[in-house]
């Protein structure tokens, strides 16, 4: 019984935690595509900055993942 609740908790932790970063990464990608479409010569700079931004957004999903892993395995 306790294990079942732990499993549900781990699933919810990563599932809910992935919503925000998902939206964030989607917006970053969309805006970067828009920017590349407007100014194709700046692809390199835009890509580097986009990947950096995605890394920040992704870090939050990773926190949720770490919490989920801690619930599941520790």
């Amino acid at each position: 019984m306790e294990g079942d609740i732990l499993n549900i908790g781990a699933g919810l932790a990563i599932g809910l935690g992935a919503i925000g970063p998902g939206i964030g990464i989607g917006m970053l990608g969309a805006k970067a595509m828009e920017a590349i479409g407007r100014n194709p010569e700046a692809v390199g700079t835009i890509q580097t900055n986009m990947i950096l931004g995605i890394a920040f957004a992704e870090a939050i999903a990773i926190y949720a993942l770490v919490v989920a892993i801690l619930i599941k395995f520790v």
Partner: protein
Amino acid sequence: MKKLFSYISKILLNPIFLGCILIISILGGALGAASSASLGFLSAPFAYISIPSETLYVFKGDSFLINFFNRALTNTFLMSLLGIVVLLIISKIATQNMKIIPSGIQNFIEFVIEAMYNTCKKIAGEEKGKIFFPLVMTIFLFIVVSNWIGVLPGTGTIGRIETAEEYCHHQKEKNNLGHDVDFNIYKRNGNLSSTLFGFGAAQYKIKSSDPSLFNHVNNEICSQDWLDLEFEKAKQIKAEELSTNNFDENYQAGILVPFFRGANSDINTTLALALCAMISIHFWAFKYLGLFGHIGKFINFKNGPINFFVGILELVGELAKIISFTFRLFGNIFAGEVLLFAMAFLLPLIGIIPFLGLELFIGLIQGLIFAMLTLIFATISTVEHNSDEH
């Protein structure tokens, strides 16, 4: 020779051949094992996932070195040493006979280093870029190399079997009891065992649920008799399931302790890297802004109470940087490892291949992000900021 090569590649890329492999992998994997007992011939037991790195060897003795460092040689530490050795060998080969017009590996290394050097100078400026570059490049190379050798076949799959009894003993020493552990039954082959290609796989698990395992008889932790009894029962059930009786003394219950495990899947490695990066950043900040210039950013009495609290928030932000450095790298690499374990378990032959590519990409990107963030934080913290302007 060339003809043979093209012939082999023709076979390997044939859709019918690939389809056959896919069907074999589905039938032989966990799906096949779930549907019928006679299938699942390729499936390995699901690897034991442990967040702390596993100890391979404990140094005994009382000398200063042993007391100063960790007594335990862990598999992730071994892997990071291996990464350093690989880097040393590559740089030795690349600089062996240097030419003015580079070619081969020297060309490649020069390209990588020059690209990072130009990025450093572009972001931090000519003068500071030269100072930040060594740390940034070191972090990048170390992380990328240790991530890439962490996805080589053999990491996480070849190791020693820690028997159930030994496991309980260790957990008792760490005062970490009451876990639910699935012990697998492994075939013993000398001291070496492997889950690679399902070698020595036996899927029955002894499930140890607390408190029956840990406080079984008269509070005696992990009584040997009870484990033996449970193990016999497990072997019997498995043998009946397969309608064979080939389980003899060569099988034992335990968990696999891999010899190699990606260095960054240990939180200590990533924390050490994050601390190195942040300490250097603050060192540079003190060097460029002076003692009061740097501290004044965090403890700020000059511009009223709001700026004082902004300064406190910045101080918290510095701690958050360390935490996010640590967990970003650790989470990505550890999750990648669990993903590879799960795919090797579900689709043994073919399922792991696209994810190996993904892991190589993630390893590169994470190294790049760690290095770039170090560079950017260093640049930001060494720039004098004037709060009067806005």
